């Protein structure tokens, strides 16, 4: 597994390897697993993959917990790891699609999506067409309710970049939904 920890650099320090922060990993898992899986499903679109991404994030946290500068950074770390894991998944899917036989049928939509009304499906479909970073900004802003600073930390980009990505994404979405 090769999950980078971009976005959590402020929370991780190679010099702090001997610091015992006593992170209660089971408690973190109980508290944040569902919310992080919901975040992941908005990025990768299906529940099993979202669960996989979140499991990876917790496993990475366990591996790197001794390098966290402060215990409160654990959630930021997990969020960043979910984003990175989702990106990796989408990249792998893109590669797989290029080598897939043309006769492969498209994957059926998850049953859960049948519960989503048509208007929401149209919005979600439009979001899926956005570049990865724009999609991430929108999800973090409008689902996770993060501030610009928190989004910047999670994504490892500047606050200005968060603003511009969000603005472009909303403009593009408006255009897509107007045309649909």
């Amino acid at each position, binding site marked *: *597994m090769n999950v980078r920890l971009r976005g959590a650099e402020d929370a991780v320090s190679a010099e702090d390897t001997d610091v015992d922060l006593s992170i*209660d*990993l*089971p*408690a973190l*898992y*109980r*508290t*944040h*697993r*569902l*919310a992080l*899986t*919901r*975040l992941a*499903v*908005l990025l990768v679109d299906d*529940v*099993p993959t*979202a*669960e*996989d991404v979140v*499991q990876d994030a*917790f*496993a990475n*946290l*366990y*591996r790197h917990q001794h390098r966290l500068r402060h*215990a*409160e950074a654990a*959630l930021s770390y997990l969020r960043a790891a979910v984003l990175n894991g989702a990106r990796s998944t989408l990249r792998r899917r893109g590669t797989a699609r290029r080598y897939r036989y043309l006769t492969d049928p498209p994957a059926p939509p*998850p049953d*859960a*999506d049948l*519960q*989503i*009304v048509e*208007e*929401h*499906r149209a*919005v*979600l479909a439009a*979001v899926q067409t956005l570049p990865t970073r724009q999609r991430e900004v*929108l*999800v973090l802003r*409008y*689902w*996770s*309710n993060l501030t610009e600073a928190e989004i910047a930390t999670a994504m490892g980009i500047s606050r200005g970049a968060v603003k511009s990505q969000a603005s472009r994404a*909303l*403009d593009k*979405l*408006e255009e897509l*939904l107007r045309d649909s």
Partner: protein
Amino acid sequence: MMTDDRRPVLETRLRDAFAAKAETVTDKLLAANRAGGAPALSTMNSGRLRRGTLGAVLAAAAVVVLVAGGGAAVINASRHRDSPATPRPTPSLHSPAPTGAVPTTAVTSHGAGSAPKSSVGPKGGPVPAGFTPYSATFVSPTDGWVLGNAPCTSAPCTSIVRTRDGGATWQGIPAPRTPIYDGQQGSGVNVLHFADPLNGWAAGDQLWATHDGGASWHQVKLAPGGQVANVETAAGTAYAMWVGPASTVVYATAPGSDRWHAVLTAPLAAAPSALVVKGRDWYLSDRDGVYHGVGANAPTRLANPCAGTSAALLAVADIAHLDAVCVLDGAAGTVRFQLYGTTDGGAHWTKAGGTHFAPSGLDVMDDNGNGVLLLAATAGSSVLQRTTNDGASFTTALTVNGASTGWSDVGFTTSTQAIAVLPGRAFYLSRDAGRTWTRMPF
């Protein structure tokens, strides 16, 4: 470029669409995935053992999470397990009930051993300077939260403070990014209720939810144009009482979910009182009677003990033993009231003691299930009255002069601990079943 006035519409559509998609993922679904063979924490990572040097570390992480946490599937299957029914053979007002009673208003019970640990949730920071309380909720004698307001430079200034030691110390934690709702104009929240250390709601004319102990909050949509008057939880179900322009609706959900469904729609003209929940039973009274529901089942109608005078102010000790206060008449800021009790779940009511007087704004009543009944009222001054002899006499336990907003969240958190909030004024705690009260500093 999109114009500014169109962006809020798009933002709302986005929030709604994300919420709809995210809500397809539930604890139940995740548990089912594991049961159905989807990758569990241990098996998924042990598979990667064969592919990389990190495998051993990852597998160790999985084992630690699974073992130290008691197993992810077990944790989530049990998080919202219904509390076991507590045998309550004795009447509430008519003879003392056993100690250790299950709390009622503003309080939540959960099965011992099945609730999330109190250590979950955000770490917490300092209490904001100038914090003033609006609503309070406890899930145990030690774990409580207070919703309030504090001066700040960038609105909204809504704040939440949390205690894990019964009010000895408080920490600030994140709050919904919406103002305190004054009940008349503007928009926001003024009621806070937690079901357990993870799941809570802030309500007003908006409804916000947290499923991570208050670390993050998100808005949940019910019907537009109304107000969520109160949220109560018991026995693995949360109930929200929504009052709209033409009707009152009781919604129910599982504490970990944001999918609320209506279990009662009643006409507004019936002038309902507050929703009262005990175990799997909920009660809502109006002038025509008392709605009694069990979980999400269709409610039945009980007789109004105050027939011909008012809607009953209810308190529930257990499903057999209920208390009702009926306003008989009044003048000049004072009302005369009669206490009633039932020992058969509301089929028959009998008078308890004589008539008594209280300030005209009767707000809340609660029964500790151990022979103590609290009655909160406001008119000019705000008072907490208390009876320990089945309504034969009431004594005034607390008087706060100059308060005119009425009480919120008056209730027992255990058989001996009780809380009371004067919105925008003060938060009081009692540790002797409401006999004496202490104003809590923040």
